[in-house]
């Protein structure tokens, strides 16, 4: 299944992309996806904690993904 990952801040900087489409096996959850993303960044995201947003809502525990989901791993926000 195809999952869209929106990239911001450190993730965008590490991967050089605004958005990535990741192909995952059925049954994968948001925690699996985070590991994929951290892998792609080759250590550049070590030490940075993310909050996860699934389809633009924060989630607190890993959630199983569905085809077409949009996920963002949110580095510490800095508005204001």
């Amino acid at each position: 299944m195809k999952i869209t990952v929106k990239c911001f801040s450190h993730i965008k900087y590490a991967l050089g992309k605004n958005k990535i489409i990741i192909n995952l096996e059925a049954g994968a959850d948001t925690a699996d996806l985070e590991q994929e993303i951290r892998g792609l960044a080759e250590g550049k995201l070590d030490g940075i904690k993310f909050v996860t947003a699934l389809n633009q809502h924060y989630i607190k525990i890993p959630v199983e993904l569905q085809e077409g989901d949009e996920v963002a791993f949110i580095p510490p926000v800095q508005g204001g």
Partner: protein
Amino acid sequence: MIIAEIVEGPISPFPENNSRRNQGAELVFKGRVRSRENGKLIQGLDYEHYASMASTELENLARKTVNKYPISDLFCRHRVGEVPVGAASLIVVIWSKHRREGFDAMAFFIAELKQHVPIWKWAIFPDGSRIPSESKHC
């Protein structure tokens, strides 16, 4: 009444209003870009946001604040994109009967905004390069 907007370009102030009959306190906060990020000179910040989610989170937070504190109105505009040093990145206006609830609501709103609304700062250096800001919310 609530206004909560993400805007590009300079923030328009909310208009002066002398016609309210029951609000004794108007509190305005403007957050402005300082010339240094982590000790390094910058020419500005580039505020990145998770477009639709940031708007929703900002609106939800405004509503939560108005429900939590006895205030009558909260108006907020957060600027995104490049903001030069000295310019406002954020304006928040709170109207209330007495000042105390306005102060409390303002402190709460800004603290929550800095924790939950998906907006990030990129430092823009004098040579034009930019990196994600290392600053923690404070």
